[in-house]
């Protein structure tokens, strides 16, 4: 009964033009508290993906490869990553009068929702990408967040796949884990000026780094013995659209250096599932970036790149990418809705100063906190006349796209901006 009502709600919501991301889950929950457990228990292998950055890309990549392995695979690829969003997907895929056996369930989980989802599970995999400061007004401080996730793993049969290069991820070392990381041969990242914390999470002393990739990611050691673990999966080289992991070469189509961590996380997970090398290779090679993740849209022969950014680390990686794509226009759409985080102070932690070395003709700022973004640019030395302010991006879209442009959006601005750009685009390709 609860499932039926949930399905109806999803249909109705879609008919009214919404994406129906978690409404089905919320309705189903109203009628049955145990519905989540019941549905998830029908899935043979549950894979949860959490962390600050990269979880959508890892989820989509895993889901697309696993769909090739087994067509019953389900996933919240739309990015509805709250408890109710995951429930919604399971409700939607539920088929009455069938056995509903599902081999793989691949779910992206919001960091603040891991605890709730873990309560419904007995055995599963959990991939953790990284922990950067993100929406602190919602998650309080990172230490508290990590402790909460750790508590949820007690007495559970969980296999963790963690980022060895992130000292925060390594805080999960007392659980059953395998790790992945970059070898010291990788030198293509440029370290940003602000790091979350390069201090030991155990004893508080300053960590010693022999390599720093970005943020607090790198090869760290501490006098107290809190040392980076030796990963089971090592990324040994990066060459354009090729990466080498444990002596094996994979081709891929993802732009942005930071994506190598996402590829590595997904491939490590697939190897743990004993998926054949051939399937992984093909899946990774065929995978195209999801919308809004360095998505390329061609408008009047101009290359427009659209990228979602949620925190200063993601912003730094995107700004570095600007060096490669050489845009003449840069647009920032900054909102402070619930989904973005009400506090936009993180824009002052990001290194917009990178842009001073580039030849940018105009800066466009938009969204509910357009003025804060304008101040950020002005105070680092961008002349006021180069900054165009308008709260409504729709009124700026024509002028922004009459040159090569990079459009950077916060979370709640993504869908509308993507639609505006795609409508104008002649060639749509996720590169």
């Amino acid at each position: 009964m609860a499932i039926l009502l949930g399905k109806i709600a999803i249909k109705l919501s879609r008919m009214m033009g919404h994406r129906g991301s978690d409404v089905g889950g919320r309705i189903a929950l109203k009628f049955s508290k145990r519905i989540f457990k019941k549905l998830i228990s029908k899935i043979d292998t549950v894979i949860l993906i959490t962390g600050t950055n990269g979880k959508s890309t890892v989820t989509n990549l895993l889901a697309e490869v696993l769909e090739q392995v087994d067509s019953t695979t389900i996933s919240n690829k739309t990015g509805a990553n709250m408890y109710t969003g995951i429930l919604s997907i399971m409700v939607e895929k539920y088929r009455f009068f069938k056995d509903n056996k599902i081999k793989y369930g691949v779910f992206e989980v919001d960091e603040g929702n891991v605890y709730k989802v873990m309560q419904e599970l007995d055995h599963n995999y959990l991939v953790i990408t990284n922990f950067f400061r993100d929406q602190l007004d919602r998650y309080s401080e990172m230490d508290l967040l990590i402790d909460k996730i750790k508590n949820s793993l007690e007495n559970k049969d969980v296999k963790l796949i963690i980022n060895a290069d992130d000292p925060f991820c390594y805080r999960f070392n007392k659980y059953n884990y395998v790790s992945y990381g970059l070898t010291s041969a990788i030198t293509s990242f440029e370290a940003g000026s602000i790091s979350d914390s390069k201090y030991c999470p155990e004893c508080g002393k300053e960590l010693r780094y022999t390599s720093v990739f970005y943020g607090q990611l790198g090869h760290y050691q501490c006098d107290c013995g809190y040392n980076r673990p030796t990963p089971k999966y090592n990324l040994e080289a990066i060459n354009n659209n090729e990466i080498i992991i444990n002596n094996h070469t994979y081709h891929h189509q993802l732009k942005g250096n930071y994506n190598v961590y996402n590829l590595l996380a997904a491939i490590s997970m697939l190897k743990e599932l004993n998926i054949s090398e051939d399937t992984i290779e093909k899946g990774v090679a065929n995978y195209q970036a999801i919308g809004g993740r360095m998505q390329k849209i061609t408008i009047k022969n101009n290359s427009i790149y659209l990228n979602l950014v949620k925190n200063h680390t993601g912003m730094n990686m995107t700004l570095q990418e600007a060096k490669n794509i050489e845009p003449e226009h840069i647009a920032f759409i900054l909102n402070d809705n619930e989904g973005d985080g009400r506090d936009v102070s993180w824009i002052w932690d990001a290194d917009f100063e990178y842009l001073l070395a580039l030849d940018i003709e105009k800066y466009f700022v938009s969204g509910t906190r357009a003025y804060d973004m304008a101040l950020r640019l002005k105070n680092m030395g961008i002349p006021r006349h180069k900054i165009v302010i308008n709260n409504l991006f729709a009124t700026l879209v024509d002028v922004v796209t009459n040159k090569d442009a990079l459009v950077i959006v916060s979370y709640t601005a993504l869908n509308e901006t993507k639609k505006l750009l795609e409508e104008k685009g002649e060639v749509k390709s996720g590169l």
Partner: protein
Amino acid sequence: MDYNIYHLFPQLLNLYGDKGNITTLCYFAKQFGLNPVVHEVNDVADIVWDDVDFMLLGGGSDREQAIVTAKLSEIKEQLKAKIEAGLPLLAVCGGYQFLGNYYQDSQGNKLAGLGILDFYTVGQTKERLLGNCVIETTDFGSLIGFVNHAGETFHDLEPLGQAIVGYGNNLESKAEGIRYKNLIGTYLHGPLLPRNPALTLFFIEKFLQKNNVAYDFMKIDLTLEEETRASYLNKIGVNQ
């Protein structure tokens, strides 16, 4: 003329864009023809006390603040003397809490502060003080910012202002922050200085006066700041 800005423990006390205070101070210092020099202090031995023109103490997570308290206690006497002598200092959130006698965590453990000013802070778990804030002050007009902390601060000293939107020093009082000589302590992030140019100019003015540099505030263009403030106040529903 060099304007020496000391940013204390930027790697640890960097929770909510406090670095933006430095960016903004540098921007305005240049408007007055000064040469801002930023000193990122990670080791207290690097502080050249006679050269400090401005100091920023930001906020960090509980873990990071415990590390910093230990380091700061080594310079307690010098810092206190400089503050008494009128050092322009901005202390935000955790940085503000450090200046008091102690911070009592939610389990009742007391973490000693620097004891420079006579106040204390109690961590609590019933309600996080979180959200947009507007503080009315006598000297700086309305200050706007964002707070996010679990500590309640108590004192009878002169506050920075009165909260007309959001929280004061604790859940009962609307009095926010502290003002002592040229020291300003507050819970307001945002960061504080970009959207509150009156405060930025206050700090720079102290330097200009001390060094007998002639200046004219009227020449400083604050149009974008005024537009930003108007847009923000309008958004959170404060009539001006």
